[in-house]
């Protein structure tokens, strides 16, 4: 090796030694949790700017917190979307359905019916309420924790479970990891699993819609941790350069597996403030407040439809459960965090608001929760008729080779023949698990 300058642990001059800062979360397992450092404004105190506002005039919104539902369970202030009671009940039911679905699928994974599952407990409002503010044909580019969008858009629960089980009813032919749904019919883009790749894709879709003079807009969801990916920077740059009709939703649930939001820069600034450097409109929103989530998305959608520009929205929320069924958060964070989270639970807050309005009661809530659980249970039984992972009821072998290209090239034809030949030897009864 060529001669290199010597490196030494000890500084040789009297200049101050440089120090590397490695972020550390406030609380680790067993620690007492105190969230008094968080600045949480009272609901209703934030003004609502015009949708065509210049991002330069919106700096406060990137650092503040838009909140509608107060401690008194009433809706407050200019951001109140003033939804009718039926819409609020639909929103509540969608969120309850997501929760019932998550509970059942999590158990299904523990029972060995599939390999993997991811819950969105505590974050239901960020997908359900925000997607309800979009038109049903606005295109969404979600990450892996937005099952609430599919449920809000009426995608059949049994199809979701077929996908999770990778069974012969799976519309994705058993090719994708569980929960990586796709539904063109529901304007729901195929979920990748590689992080933040969907963000420039959403911008590209929005650019295409603008090129064509269409009226549909695009929205994407990304976790705060993966805003560190270059793709997100590309998305923000292209969005602002072409004034694309797109909404960039950042779900700040505080944790990216075991890495707290500080590893994406949260010790220094907010995620909504990322918008400022790009000249995007930036909003920071109480992500556990379904009405604030709806109102922010509606504001951004109006802005996009008026060709007034893209918006970056940070939803400040908390990942109440592990990252996935493969994760154990007791190994890296204090269990008290969930209990002490100062923004409460999104389902309870919306329920209490409806009760406060005189449009709901505890009995109806219990009946609805039971109904959701029963519906999911019935859908699970229905899906299990198509098989569970590893139990033989999968798509035919040849489908493994299809859709790599529009047409099968010679090498895939040859390999398909080989797979089918191997099958006779490996599984004389038919296939894996049979």
């Amino acid at each position: 090796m060529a001669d290199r300058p010597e490196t030494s642990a000890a500084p040789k001059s009297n200049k101050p030694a440089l120090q590397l800062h490695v972020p550390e979360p406030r609380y680790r397992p067993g620690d007492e949790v105190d969230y008094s450092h968080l600045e949480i404004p009272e609901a209703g105190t934030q003004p609502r700017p015009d949708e065509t506002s210049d991002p330069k005039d919106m700096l406060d919104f990137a650092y503040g917190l838009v909140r509608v539902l107060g401690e008194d369970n009433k809706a407050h202030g200019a951001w109140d979307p003033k939804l009718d009671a039926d819409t609020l009940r639909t929103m509540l039911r969608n969120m309850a359905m997501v929760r019932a679905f998550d509970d059942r699928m999590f158990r299904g994974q523990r029972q060995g019916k599939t390999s993997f599952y991811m819950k969105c407990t505590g974050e239901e409002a960020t997908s359900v309420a925000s997607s309800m503010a979009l038109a049903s044909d606005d295109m969404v580019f979600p990450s892996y924790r937005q099952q609430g969008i599919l449920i809000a858009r009426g995608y059949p629960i049994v199809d979701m479970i077929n996908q999770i089980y990778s069974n012969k009813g799976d519309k994705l032919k058993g090719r994708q990891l569980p929960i990586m749904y796709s539904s063109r019919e529901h304007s729901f883009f195929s979920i990748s699993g590689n992080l933040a790749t969907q963000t420039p894709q959403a911008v590209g879709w929005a650019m295409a819609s603008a090129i064509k003079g269409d009226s549909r807009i695009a929205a994407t969801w990304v976790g705060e941790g993966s805003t560190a990916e270059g793709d997100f920077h590309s998305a923000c740059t292209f969005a602002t350069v072409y004034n694309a009709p797109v909404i960039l939703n950042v779900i700040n649930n505080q944790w990216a597996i075991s890495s707290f939001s500080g590893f994406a820069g949260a010790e220094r600034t907010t995620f909504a403030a990322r918008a400022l450097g790009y000249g995007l409109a930036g909003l920071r929103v109480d992500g556990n407040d379904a009405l604030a989530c709806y109102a922010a998305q509606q504001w951004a959608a109006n802005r996009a439809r008026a060709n007034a520009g893209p918006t970056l929205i940070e939803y400040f929320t908390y990942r109440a459960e592990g990252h996935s069924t493969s994760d154990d958060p007791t190994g890296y964070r204090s269990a008290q965090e969930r209990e002490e989270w100062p923004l409460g639970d999104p389902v309870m807050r919306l329920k209490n608001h409806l009760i406060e309005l005189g449009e709901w009661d505890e009995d109806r809530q219990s009946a609805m929760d039971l109904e959701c659980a029963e519906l999911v249970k019935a859908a699970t039984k229905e899906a299990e008729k198509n098989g569970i992972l590893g139990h033989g009821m999968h798509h035919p072998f040849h489908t493994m080779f299809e859709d790599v290209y529009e047409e099968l090239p010679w090498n895939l034809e040859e390999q398909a023949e080989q797979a089918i030949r191997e099958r006779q030897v490996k599984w004389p009864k038919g296939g894996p698990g049979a």
Partner: protein
Amino acid sequence: MSIDVKDQATGDTGTERRLNMIEAINDALDIMLERDNDVIVMGEDVGYFGGVFRCTAGLQEKHGKTRVFDTPISECGIIGVAVGMGAYGLRPVPEIQFADYIYPGLDQLISEAARLRYRSANDYIAPMTVRSPFGGGIFGGQTHSQSPEAIFAHVAGLKTVIPATPYDAKGLLISAIEDNDPVIFFEPKRIYNGPFSGYYDKPVEPWKKHKDSVVPEGYYKVPLGKARHVTEGEALTVLAYGTMVHVAEAVCEAKGIDADILDLRTIVPLDIEAIEASVEKTGRCLIVHEATRTAGFGAELSALVTERCFYNLEAPVERVTGFDTPYPHSLEWAYFPGPVRIGEAIDKILKD
């Protein structure tokens, strides 16, 4: 831009239109922008300026700023938005200014564009044609000379096309744009302006003297996955693509070798039938590419020929390639797999 010539060698009447590779590519883009409103062209410097190699010259003026436009310097962004545009229903034709710059876009190509059809079970597709100048021989140094085709050939779901003549460049590009799978379209920049014999110290021959510079007006296609016979012969098979087709042809001609030269045109999909038929006929096979040797596409070709034509072979398959180094600047012509390296390999194959 067409060159109306009266070619004395062919006795042509002057109705034939002769184009160089750049003009042929420009013509294909122009035709597809005209025929299909869903085609858009984007990339760094491709708009008003018309591209650093002029391949998109005049297209913005003719087709408008929302059909042909400049992009930020972000290959990840260019490919990423192209995936979204494809999902919408457009047929984006992004340009990556040099193949050497494509790497920031690799995740969007490999994990997204290439797999979208598969992972969504045909729900969404990514019909894009990524054009990019590639290869050396222009004193581009190590960041303007690479031939990364093997990286893309290795990725299931991508097609990789490399034209060697103006006629093919136009017809293959039209096929690529109409293809419903993502296509990497590498343009050998050494032969943009004229075919290259490999003798770097000889003057550049313009395309207009080459028979394959006759490029018809209007729409035509050259299918992906069909190799082209450059010369037919009995002594040995030469498998090549891009610039190296011309170098190999010049060497065989100079040495008086009765070679069966195949221009592969597309390495994925690969015309395996043409390769097998040729090697069965000649029993000897030389593979030539400019890219580095180890795990280059020549390794795949060599394996295929050995596996499928072993009992026809009368000599080991030989590869002539670039060296396993970055593309050097001052020693470019020492690196380039030119006539000496090819000639030596031919002698070795024909020895017994």
